[in-house]
């Protein structure tokens, strides 16, 4: 899995300043209903809040509808941003989930 995590702001940030990562959608069917649903559920487990950005469009990680409305097809590059207490823990996990190859892989990750 190739997830590039760019912690531009240094390793100790995240609580107040956002942590960022670029994530590429690998699911051949894009970020459709099932992955969006699972990502929203996953994001709700963390304290931190997060967004996913595609150019000028922004979605809350906890909103399945906004995630779907990104209309992110396979190969789309998205900017992931998380802010909050457990951002450091959450970022790599969320990035991996968003970049999952299929809903099945994602389901496994969440088990």
């Amino acid at each position, binding site marked *: 899995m190739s997830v590039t995590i760019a912690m531009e702001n240094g390793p100790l940030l995240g609580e107040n300043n956002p942590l960022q990562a670029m994530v590429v959608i690998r699911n051949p*069917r*894009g970020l*459709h*209903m*099932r992955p*969006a*649903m699972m990502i*929203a*559920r996953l994001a709700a487990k963390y304290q931190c809040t997060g967004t996913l950005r595609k150019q000028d469009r922004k979605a*809350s990680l*906890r*909103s*399945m*509808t*906004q995630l*779907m*409305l990104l*209309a992110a*097809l396979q190969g789309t590059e998205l900017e992931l941003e998380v802010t909050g207490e457990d951002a450091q823990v959450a970022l790599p996990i969320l990035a991996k989930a968003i970049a999952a190859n299929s809903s*099945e*892989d994602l*389901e*496994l990750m969440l*088990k």
Partner: protein
Amino acid sequence: MAIGPALVLDAEGVRIPQKRVLPSQVEAEVTRLHTALAASAFEATQSQREITQRLGAKFGAIFGAHALIFEDPAFLSDLDVLVRKERFVAEYAVSRAVRELVEAFEKEGENSFLAWRSGDLYDIEKRILKHLIGERRDPLRDVHEPSIVLARDLTPSETASLDRNSILAFATEHGGRTSHTAIMANAMELPAVVGVGHFLADVTSGDIVIVDGAEGIVIVGPDANVLAQYRKTRDARLSRSGHWVVERNLPSVTLDSVPITLLGNIEFPDEATACTARGAGGVGLYRTEFLYVGRDSDPSEEEHFRAYLRVISEMGEGRPIVIRTLDFGADKFVEAHRPKEPEKNPSLGVRSIRLCLRDTPLFCKQLRAILRASAFGDVRIMFPMISTLPELRKCLFLLKEVMEDLRESGIAFKPNLPIGTMIEVPSAAIMAAELAREVDFFSIGTNDLVQYTLAADRTNELVADLYSPADPAVLRLIKSVVDAAGKHGTGVNVCGEMSGDPLFTPLLVGMGLRQLSLAPNNLPPVKAVIRRLTVADAERIAAEAMTLDSARDVINYLLRERKRIHPEAVGGGEE
């Protein structure tokens, strides 16, 4: 395809007036809204569970997504603004928020990889409104005679709740082929044409309608000629596969209430859907050869693992999945494993378990993947083509070693997963009592058992007439295996083609089998026979068949019995 009287649903939706509440009533309105949202979420989660049980996890997930919308922060904050700031009544706020979402999704237009359609959003709206306004009379609940539903649109949950006993088919003006409504109809094998366009104005309830789902045709008020023609086509299709449409949701039990478990045989993970759609109790034979075919290298452990997980997630909880280890000849195998010299007699050569036991790294890779998958569902493992006791013990030894490795690496698996062996070589059938002590279950593979017992290759025309599962020698072997298994409390089923042929169903049940594994397509006709049979009847048939001295006599006898048990059935046996 279906022909029947139309039931036209009220084309008018509920009209929600744009009303506001007094500032002092806003809090009460917010509470009312959230109560309805919570009730809707609860209901959608229940639908998810129910549909997962009935049709599989993939279909249940549609309603899981609906459930999540009731908690979606973006949707909730839209509603909050509408009720708190604009002081709209909850009903109006809901329909307005949903309409805005529909518009947002529609703007994505043909970017339709979003398996999400306005149908789902209206489903969500209807659910909330139902809790706000109270239940309206549901015309679909009062259908007493078989009808064809014609509607402007049907939501996925309305589709899922259609009663298959009274609704023959449906057609809608709106919606698309890829909508969840169409997907549900397909999973329920309900004839449907979705998105016909404007046509309801021309129909009245009671008109005769033809809905041909396969061709995407709806005919309203057909003339006598057309009607006769379609009736003929329909009856021809029905006589082949029809009765099960009515019986698909009924349990597989005999007339005297003895359950006969029907499991599906599958080759590809996708076929698990065909099993759940036909009410299979699990997968009795998951062939894994497809993982090896048509490639230049062996499949990785991960590839095995992923394929198994797909089947597990499709079958859902509580349904066993029997994974059979690699079962084919060296000749069909990837280059690396092909024998240096062609074997003179491949079907008696290095194939199946014999190949695996000679190439333990290859074998253990698959065992590891199966064990890992066992942590995620009711996975069972089965060894094919065992011909001797030492061979089976070698397999069990290797399996134990792999378990040990996994344990040391801290990888999860189910240490007590059920282990079985196929009985398809006559020597194994004869030694069944001894083999029964070593394993949890047997699966009788009649295809090979018939071939090896009669020493006849059925693809060789000159000897094909010798090949018959009805041969008395085969019947005796099966009976002795079932008896041996019974004595040791070992489970037993039949998974060859014989178990998928309804002609043999009474015979197999009469021999004591309570579990059969068959191709998904054959589940309905076999169940139809089971439901028309008593165990005493089956035992009498088996006893009589066992006295006959040729395959032909057995077949003729079974055909006569079938005419009595299930006169409307056709096909099967040697016809």
